[in-house]
């Protein structure tokens, strides 16, 4: 009975998507890279994993809260999401006229994003995994040194209201993943391990792993500036925060 109901819902909501009622994922081949904050001695190794091709949409999230009522706007426990949780939605399962079912769901907390991924048998990506995939452009797995790549990201930061765009409206990167840059910020599982105090000049002096002097002082190149802003936003939020420009996507171990 339950299965039939699920299938029915699937066919209603996901007629345009893949048949297995799971959002599309793509293979990411692991590797070793130097993150923004790293020196050569601080390289990070990533294993193989699968990543959602698109950020989670309003449509998918409606389905999630329908099945898991405790994550509904009206039922949410304040400990798990602040007052802005699903702020712009009209009701528990209906979005507003100026929103789009195919846009990334935003105003969701880290707790909510984590629960969503768990429910799908997935998890949130780590900062290192997310950054690893996000350093690709259309052609290269690591395009961070390219001027055009960095300019694209920086220009996105200046465009207002990009959270209104629908998923898939930016470029498909080397791995086949869309929208890592250009729509919304995305939650990561360990976002709060970023040691940004909010006083960026002080961070320069901190001899911490992140934002060590070498990264910050050498930050004349655009590569670091673009990434700095992602680390800044991660450093500014708490797990119960919800932001109009912050959504998420899930990953799964291979």
């Amino acid at each position: 009975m339950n299965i039939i109901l699920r299938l029915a819902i699937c066919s209603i909501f996901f007629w345009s998507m893949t048949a297995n009622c799971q959002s599309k994922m793509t293979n990411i081949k692991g590797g070793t890279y130097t993150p923004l904050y790293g020196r050569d001695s601080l390289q990070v190794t990533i294993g193989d994993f699968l990543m959602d091709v698109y950020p989670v949409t309003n449509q998918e999230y409606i389905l999630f809260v329908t099945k898991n009522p405790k994550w509904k706007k009206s039922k949410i426990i304040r400990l798990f999401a602040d007052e802005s949780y699903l702020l712009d939605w009209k009701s528990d399962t209906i979005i507003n006229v100026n929103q789009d079912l195919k846009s990334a769901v935003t105003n969701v907390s880290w707790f909510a994003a984590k629960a969503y991924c768990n429910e799908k048998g997935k998890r949130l990506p780590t900062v290192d995994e997310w950054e690893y995939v996000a350093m690709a452009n259309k052609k290269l797995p690591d395009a961070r040194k390219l001027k055009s790549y960095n300019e694209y990201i920086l220009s996105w930061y200046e465009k207002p209201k990009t959270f209104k765009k629908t998923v898939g409206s930016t470029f498909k990167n080397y791995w086949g993943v869309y929208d890592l840059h250009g729509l919304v910020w995305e939650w990561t599982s360990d976002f709060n391990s970023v040691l940004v105090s909010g006083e960026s000049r002080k961070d320069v002096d901190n001899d911490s792993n992140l934002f060590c002097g070498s990264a910050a002082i050498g930050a004349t190149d655009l590569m670091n500036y673009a990434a700095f802003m992602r680390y800044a936003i991660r450093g500014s939020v708490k797990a119960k925060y919800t932001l109009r420009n912050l959504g998420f996507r899930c990953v799964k171990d291979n």
Partner: protein
Amino acid sequence: MEKLKTFIGNIGLIALTAITLTSCGNTSEKKATTNASKIAIKGTMKAELTAPPFVPTPVGNRAAKKLIVDMEILEKEGTMADGTTYVYWTFGGSVPGSFIRTRVGDEVEFTLSNHPDNKLPHNIDLHAVTGPGGGATSSFVAPGHEKTFSFKTLNPGLYVYHCATAPVGMHIANGMYGLILVEPEGGLPKVDKEYYIMQGDFYTKGDNGAPGLQAFDMKKAVDEDADYVVFNGKVGALTGDNAITANVGETVRLYVGNGGPNLVSSFHVIGEIFDRVNVEGGSMVNENVQTTLIPAGGSAIVEFKVDVPGTFIIVDHSIFRAFNKGALGMLKVKGEENKKLYSGIKQEGIYHPEGGTIQEMPNNQKVKTVKKKKTLVEKIAAGKNLYTKTCFACHQANGEGIPNAFPPLANSDYLNADVKRSIGIILNGKTGEITVNGKKYNSVMTKQTLTDEEIADVMTYVYNSWGNNKTNVKVSTVQQVKNGH
């Protein structure tokens, strides 16, 4: 009861301090600063915040209070110059941000709100704050959230505030700076007019004048290669109808800041001398200053009495910034002329270094007395040479002029309508409002000391350039105008 006792005790202490202070003579000022932390607050008020060029009401005699400041951060598109827009990041919706006015001893309760539509976290570092990061550490706030912190104002002066979130340079370059004034007890001396001016440099993908929405250019910012250097966030924020005003006889006080991010300002008002300058916004007063240096992240308070009417041009005297990058404002002063202070042109005549008669240089070569008539091409070439020496500074390399200050010569309806009128302007100068290509200009062009032939050449060059009507201006026409025919 216990409280009352403490209160009375405090009064006693304050009275004692006051007595000690008056007996200290020269060192009293220093002591007053150190003791500002002990000033008791009396009551609560909401701070009045103003957008430039205006400032809030002076503090006057009011007691130190708990001062509530609510400031909202908005990322929004605005106009940089005619036809050019830019996404500004702002404190309170304006560049520079809202002006905050406090007095020594105020306890400021500062709430920083980050609009939900904003993409980035921000914070605020107020140079008036004594404490780590100037408040930055306590005010780091995500979009859709707000943070409150408080501080006591200990040192009087004019201070810059700015965002200090990584990358700091980019946040400042996008307009995140403003001024906070801490007045001494009893307030600053009363003046007739007060204004708020802040300089900033901007770095855009396209060069100065490129149309459309221009993105921030990090490379140029790092190279300190500014496309725009402006007062109050945009070209023309203080010119034409936006000019600041005063009446003859009034004392004007300008609170001037420099947000940077990179450039230092050589602040100057053409045709005025600053009677008093609070150097670097601090307590040291310098008198009779022509140009005052304002560091990036610094300020100055300048004061002067306006004695004669007219338009006074406010510039960064690193002068290419003023005429080519936008660092130009205007103070319009109305009132009676005072010929004793400034006569205007009294007399004009011809200057002969060797006396009125000898004009030929002693020369072995034969001086050609009959001049060959120039061809059109020769006239244009000679005219172009003159143009770059004489006209270029105001009317610009391609005759495009400077918006709101100097009218264009390129494709100019005003120019093409009347050749003799144009010749007259070169001969006699021009003051007052004119309309060129649908835009009003109210500036001054001085009379040019050129020969008749030179005028004919330069006019021919202008008329045969940039889409004008190709008139070949003859020397005889110039002479006609000169002789009033």
